[in-house]
């Protein structure tokens, strides 16, 4: 009790920036980007103000689920190097305040989406928030090594919500954009977890390398990479992407598979090896020497997904024709 009192008097007060950090701005920016691509790729005229409101609602909804995640996961976050500086585990924001912010922003974003755009988009947004905050955060994350595979759906839905916001429907091409992110998530996250598994182990989170070992994780990354790349190229054959998309997705797929193959053949995630940065200052290659292949795939996966969606966005904004294959 005495310690708690001493802590509370010395703790830094919450600044507005701490509440902003609860919304995971970096995740939000990725969500905005993919949702915008879905909205534009729908190729339906929309009032620009309503389009901006739709994107804002999706961004705020994503931020709200981030706040709910940080409220519930404060105990896990406190044990991991990457997350222990977050506002709740660091003691700058009370858990109850993070919960309140998450619930209020969830309600506001869904209601505004429904009233300003349509209730299909609002329903999808509500489902995404609940799926991330409840199904993934409260259940899957602590329970199964398939947590990020199933939970990846929450991160994959924003382009569908964007599409639904302007059309009120969710055609196959919208779900194809969802499938690309969904299939991309396992190789992306498992590559990261190969060199951060110590942290997950410490926190008791059953990430794949902790549960199945590094070798099995590398094999599964390779399998998911083989499954993911056809999805990445598919929009070029479904009337969604054009020549530029085919070139970017095809060349990128080759690089992705090459990096995934090198990771599969590597010793990434195995015990032993020296940390390049023993002081743990968190540099770009602050990983065990053998895990560079994992870091390479992780870094390229971000670039590849960004390129795929950026190319689609540019093609549709510029009015470039889609490939007519069939």
């Amino acid at each position: 009790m005495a310690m708690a009192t001493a802590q509370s008097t010395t703790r830094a007060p919450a600044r507005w920036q701490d509440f902003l950090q609860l919304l995971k701005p970096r995740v939000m920016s990725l969500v905005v980007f993919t949702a915008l691509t879905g909205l534009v790729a729908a190729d339906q005229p929309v009032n620009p103000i309503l389009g901006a409101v739709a994107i804002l609602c999706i961004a705020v909804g994503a931020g709200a689920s981030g706040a709910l995640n940080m409220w519930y996961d404060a105990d896990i976050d406190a044990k991991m190097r990457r997350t222990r500086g977050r506002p709740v585990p660091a003691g700058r924001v009370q858990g109850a305040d993070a919960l309140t912010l998450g619930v209020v922003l969830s309600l506001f974003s869904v209601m505004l989406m429904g009233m300003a755009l349509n209730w299909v988009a609002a329903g999808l947004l509500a489902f995404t928030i609940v799926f991330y905050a409840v199904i993934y955060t409260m259940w899957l994350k602590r329970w199964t090594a398939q947590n990020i595979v199933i939970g990846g759906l929450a991160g994959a839905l924003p382009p569908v919500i964007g599409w639904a916001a302007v059309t009120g429907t969710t055609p196959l091409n919208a779900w194809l954009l969802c499938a690309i992110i969904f299939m991309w998530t396992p190789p992306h996250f498992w590559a990261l977890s190969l060199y951060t598994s110590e942290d997950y182990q410490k926190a008791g989170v059953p990430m794949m390398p902790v549960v199945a070992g590094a070798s099995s994780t590398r094999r599964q990354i390779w399998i998911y990479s083989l499954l993911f790349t056809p999805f990445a190229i598919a929009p070029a054959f479904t009337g969604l992407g054009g020549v530029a998309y085919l070139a970017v997705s095809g060349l990128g797929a080759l690089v992705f598979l090459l990096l995934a193959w090198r990771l599969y053949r590597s010793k990434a995630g195995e015990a032993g090896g020296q940390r390049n940065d023993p002081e743990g200052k968190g540099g770009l290659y602050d990983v065990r020497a053998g895990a560079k292949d994992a870091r390479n795939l992780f870094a390229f996966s971000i670039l590849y997904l960004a390129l795929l969606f950026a190319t689609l966005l540019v093609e549709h904004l510029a009015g470039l024709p889609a490939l007519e294959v069939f």
Partner: protein
Amino acid sequence: MSDPARESDVETKARRGRNIALALGLALFVVLIFVVTLVRLGANVTARPL
């Protein structure tokens, strides 16, 4: 010795920042609802039977 019940300058500054951010957020929300109402209803208002 300072009074523990009294806010320090840092706490006052942080509270002020939070209040301003909240006020801006609420003002933005009001403007947003107003603009969305105009956009959604504007065309229908002029087209309604008199």
